[in-house]
């Protein structure tokens, strides 16, 4: 597997990790008595010196869909959402998968979901009580449509989502900048419900023919429903396989679908580790390649921009004699 971490990360150069530089202090410094541990909100410093300029009218309602399951919709929703929140934009992420809820797991908020949109519709709680605010990022809120083993009436599932988006727009705290809807797989009732209030769509696909065929179908349905602003994220890209002509290139994918590119995310094992931790990939420090790609995609989403060039792997770099010493 291609190692995708930058070789000069401060993590690898820290003395604790490098055995050749390990040393123990001769005298132990005096430590103050251990204080009672208290949980403080963790705020990472902004990683970038400037902020993207928001384009379009707020709230920007974006649905992240794909058609085929397992291509990375929920991962994309979590990472782009957190990335936007880190830039200071207020984000509400809606998990529109009625029955199979996953977004809370990726965000590490599974123990904090007490009320869902179904309880709001039933009158068991208010909308602000159903929103789960992430303690790490105050600008980010999660709303789940329903708990597992519950169903939303088909008749007004789409209407319910429109009411929810409208209520979020007119809430006392102010309208959020972004409302990101994580669409379920398929093109049946769940998909129809999720795309109802959306103005824009992000189509997540992988460079294989099965995902592309489904993505094309979904794009057609989105255009029929009136959503014209559709951009594409190509996920799980293996540049080594593209070089060996075992995988379609990103430009081939674009040629087949005819959509503007929002981002190209390389295949990264760190995605699974971040899922296990409940800590989205974009928060890793130093950032991994996939995390950086998600950051770039979020930046382009804010500025309503698209990619103008893609990276194609070339021949492996010829190593000099001294590279053996460097490892």
């Amino acid at each position, binding site marked *: 597997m291609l190692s*995708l971490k930058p070789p000069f990360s401060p993590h690898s150069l820290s003395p604790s990790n490098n055995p050749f530089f390990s040393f123990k202090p001769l005298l132990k410094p005096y430590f103050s008595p251990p204080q009672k541990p208290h949980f403080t909100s963790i705020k*990472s410093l902004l990683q970038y010196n400037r902020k993207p300029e928001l384009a379009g009218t707020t709230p920007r309602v974006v649905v992240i869909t794909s058609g085929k399951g397992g291509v990375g919709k929920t991962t994309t929703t979590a990472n782009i959402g957190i990335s936007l929140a880190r830039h200071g934009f207020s984000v509400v992420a809606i998990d529109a998968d009625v029955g199979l809820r996953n977004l809370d797991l990726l965000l590490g908020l599974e123990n904090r979901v007490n009320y869902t949109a179904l309880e709001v519709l039933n009158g068991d709680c208010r909308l602000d009580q159903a929103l789960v605010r992430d303690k790490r990022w105050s600008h980010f809120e999660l709303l789940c449509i329903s708990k597992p083993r*519950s169903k939303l009436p088909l008749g007004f599932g789409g209407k319910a989502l429109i009411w929810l988006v409208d209520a979020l727009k007119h809430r006392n705290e102010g309208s959020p900048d972004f409302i990101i809807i994580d669409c379920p797989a398929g093109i049946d009732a769940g998909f129809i419900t999720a795309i109802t209030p959306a103005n824009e769509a992000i189509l997540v696909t992988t460079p294989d023919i099965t995902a592309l065929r489904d993505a094309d179908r979904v794009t057609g349905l989105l255009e029929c429903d009136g959503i014209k602003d559709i951009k594409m994220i190509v996920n799980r890209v293996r540049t080594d396989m593209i070089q060996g002509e075992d995988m379609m290139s990103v*430009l081939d994918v674009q040629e087949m679908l005819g959509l503007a590119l929002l981002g190209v995310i390389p295949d990264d094992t760190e995605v699974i580790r971040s899922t296990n931790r409940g*800590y989205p990939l974009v928060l890793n*420090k130093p950032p991994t*390649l996939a995390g950086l790609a998600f950051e770039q995609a979020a930046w382009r989403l804010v500025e309503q921009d698209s990619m103008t060039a893609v990276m194609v792997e070339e021949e492996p770099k010829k190593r000099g004699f001294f590279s053996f010493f460097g490892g």
Partner: protein
Amino acid sequence: MSNFIVLIEIELLAICPLNRPSNHGGKLVLTASTTDSTVSTQSDSGRSERNAFNLGKSFQKLQQAVASLPPVVVVINKHSGANLILGFFIATTCLIIAVRIYVARQLRDTSPGSVADLVRRGQLRSDRRGISKPLKYEDPFNNPLVKVSNSNTSVEMCGTVYRLAPVTLTEEQRAIHQKRRSRAYQWKRPKVFLKEGDAIPPDVDPDTVRWIPANHPFATTVSDIDEDLAQNNVYQKHGVPFRIQAEHEALQKKLEALQGEQKFNKLVIDPVNAKDFERAFRTQSKSHDRAESGTQNGQLNESKPPKSDPLPENSDSNAASPKDEV
């Protein structure tokens, strides 16, 4: 050594049908001969004799050159001390390289999640991790670890060189794709959901009708929630949510109704207690005390079941929803 050279010569002449090696500029050149003997001419025979003479001369020269060089073993034995040191340094270097590669592999294989967990738990501040300064970028497109070439045609990242291939999608191509999709996918948003057996209403577009099977696990055509009520619930910003308030009010009404029923029941003359009441006329204070104590006991006995009733109702309502849905 001279015997070795002679052996080579004999083998060359015996095994392969080669021409006599020719001497070009001091180098021996072996060329393959034609196997067809009929081609040979008188000029070839003269040439071959001359070539044989040249070969012999060149072999003698080679013998002299080899004999002039000292044997390798002798050279090594002369400078044994320096060679040992050189060999030691080479061996040490190889050992260091091997150890570094092994250590790097070990570091790579260990899971990197432990320090991030510490940051998440609040044990470490994320901006002070490690001794070196945190990476600061202008924006995610200007990463100092990504080296872009001067001509902006290639990018080096993590030891891999990538070529920047420009996107070739034009507006015309996008329009062509949109037209293709509009022809291929005709879809209208479904607005009417009917059970199997229901008739299609006359003024409804048949393309917007969806048929839902009765045993579909996640769908229902009969909405259990009133639409207007649901809309009001979504837009509610303050106060107690509707259902909780409705349940509370219903419980209060029930309690009031029960209390009212108890008072009404007590107004009916019970012949068994009539005598007590008659006696009460004579001694009013005593009967009043008894009546009060009797009503209090009755209230206590009757208030318990109402209090216990709401609990199974609530649990039933929570349990009913999953049962109904499954």
